[in-house]
């Protein structure tokens, strides 16, 4: 298979959401000395953008979006390893620590945001669900995160997003990180009340919000 042929297949597999195949294809590409930066920019990014377009036109739906995002992620990991190996500096879109807050085990919404951020070249550290304040804060510090993203699906766990922000303030760390919040009962008003930097009511807007927060930082 020629390098062009591999890239074409990679592109198609991302469009079709065949995430089981993309890591292997990326390996093949690097074996063929395909420039990983070039592969990301000319193949992965246009593919995921086309997927986003189809989602906007209601040709694709959430399952397609997540499958394609995972396909992208699997290829991206291979290319990034290669980039690190070559010692090339690759600027990520930003580092995000993400999780669902303590007392809340709802995962799907948070995982969708996590996948889409990865697909948009954010460096994502996903802490999963039922994450307490200390775990969030320690990760923000150790990972030097640009953004902390917190999800809550229950009205009773929503206030915990505010608690984490208060704890960051007490430790003098609030200014070091942008904070975005989301989840079904969360509103713009709630985000403002607890002192978050942004809120989005769906996954696609959450990615746009993260991009905006990075620009403003």
């Amino acid at each position: 298979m020629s390098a062009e042929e591999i890239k074409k297949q990679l592109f198609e597999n991302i469009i079709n959401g065949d995430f089981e195949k993309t890591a292997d294809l990326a390996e093949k590409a690097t074996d063929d000395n395909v420039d990983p930066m070039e592969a990301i920019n000319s193949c992965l990014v246009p593919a995921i953008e086309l997927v986003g377009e189809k989602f906007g036109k209601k040709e694709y739906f959430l399952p397609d979006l997540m499958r394609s995002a995972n396909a992208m992620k699997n290829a991206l990991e291979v290319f990034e390893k290669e980039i690190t190996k070559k010692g090339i500096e690759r600027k990520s879109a930003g580092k995000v620590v993400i999780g669902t807050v303590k007392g809340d085990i709802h995962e799907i919404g948070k995982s969708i945001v996590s996948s889409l951020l990865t697909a948009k070249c954010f460096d994502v550290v996903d802490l999963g669900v039922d994450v307490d304040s200390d775990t969030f804060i320690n990760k923000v510090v150790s990972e030097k995160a640009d953004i902390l993203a917190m999800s809550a699906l229950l009205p009773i766990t929503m206030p915990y997003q505010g608690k984490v922000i208060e704890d960051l303030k007490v430790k003098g760390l609030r200014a070091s990180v942008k904070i975005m919040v989301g989840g079904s009962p969360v509103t713009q008003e709630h985000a403002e009340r607890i002192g978050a930097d942004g809120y989005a009511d769906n996954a696609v807007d959450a990615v746009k919000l993260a991009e905006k927060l990075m620009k403003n930082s």
Partner: protein
Amino acid sequence: MPIRGLKGGLLNFLSEPDLDAIHFATLEVLGEVGIKMEYRPALEIFSDFGAKVDFTNSIVKIDEQFLNKALSTAPSRFTLYGKNEDFDVKVDPERVYTIGGSSALNVLDLDGKYRPALFDDLIKFTILLDRMKHLHIMHAIVIPSDLEEYGVDRMLFAGTFPYTSRNYYSQSQTGADGVLDQIKMAAVFQGSEEAVRKNPMFTEVVCMVSPLQHEKVNSEVLIEAAKNNIPVYVEVDAMPGGTTPAPIAGTLVEQNANVLAGIVLAQLVNPGTPCIYSIASGLMDMSTGGYAGAAPETNLLHCATAQVAHYYNLPFQGGTGIDAKIPDAQAGYERAMQVLSNALAGTNFIHLSFGMMEMMLSASYEQCVIDNEIMGATFKMLEGVPVNDETLSVDLLRKVGPRSAHFLTFKETSEYVRKNYWVPEITDRNVWSSWKAMGGKSMQQAASEVAKRIIAENDKPFISEDQTKEIMEMARAFHKKAIENFKKNSQK
């Protein structure tokens, strides 16, 4: 995408014994009370075939044997032809289709103005309705106020037939001549009158009068349509409490005797003529005396009539307009209850289900788009719950297992969703802030935008400009001739 016929019949208000009782009551009425037929040739046909005919009082009485013999040639399955085969409607007593609005005198236009309908509205409505994917049969939705009404069916033909890909639901106001004029107009597109008679792309409706009367013009149209193999909607427009007994059961009996007598006549004239057992009945509102098309009792009546028609293996047209004046909450609830109940009951043609408001008096552009959405949701429900190895999903449940997980990233989910989930077009499911950010539009505003866009795009299907023009010129000449004949006859 070809028209797909989904099966109804899940909702039954009548039991088997109920249906038998309605049948036997109908036989009593047909045999002992009879039907009044004002058109002498109709009486003669019945008499020739051995029915009991009272020529002095114009009453026809038939017995069970006569009825069964005539009905035995009425087909249960036939095709109503569209302009190409994608728009063919395969009729049987199970599958459910829709028919657009008809004969409104006023319009609620896209500037929010309520005014008399114009010929230009007819064309614009037809262009809009032709793009509504859940519409299967096209009617002429308005009667334009800028045309002389006598013989206007020729002009309705010219303002509708050329602008639709669907089978056209026509009518003749003047009698047999209207049917023949329309065959000539259809032949412009279909190539020859012979081709029209073989695969007619239009149908005729005849409206019987309650209680138990066939007036002259409609009998004449019915006979002429049958002779020419044009399918006929044999319709009765009962008003329970007014023109038929107040109980639904009594109305079912009157409708049944009246419609079956019409279908029998068509079969006697030309055995095998496709006939659709039709009603556009509506409860009489006992506060206003008006026609309550969207009353729950009307819905019950239509659903029950579907069962009665199917008792004779005949396809059934039911459904009617709604009573709201603007596309508001009343319009939404009335239309949704009406079309959902009819679809579930197996009404084969849900008639007047697009745009008709105000007790059949007005048509709304916006409501046409909203009704398409309601119809889409209705058809989704009609698909029911398929249960098979694939949908039971045991393999997938095994694969995922009991753990914190979700099904979103599975190929099975992605494929199933794309193939099966209904995608709303103007229904909003965003939260307040997203909805606000996108303009915070009401459903009426969203529908208005769609209607304006489609009318501006002005896609005219299939037929050439020349053919459209030719049909229009013929229609003008036929209309003029009909008016002249009318004047001549009234001077006599």
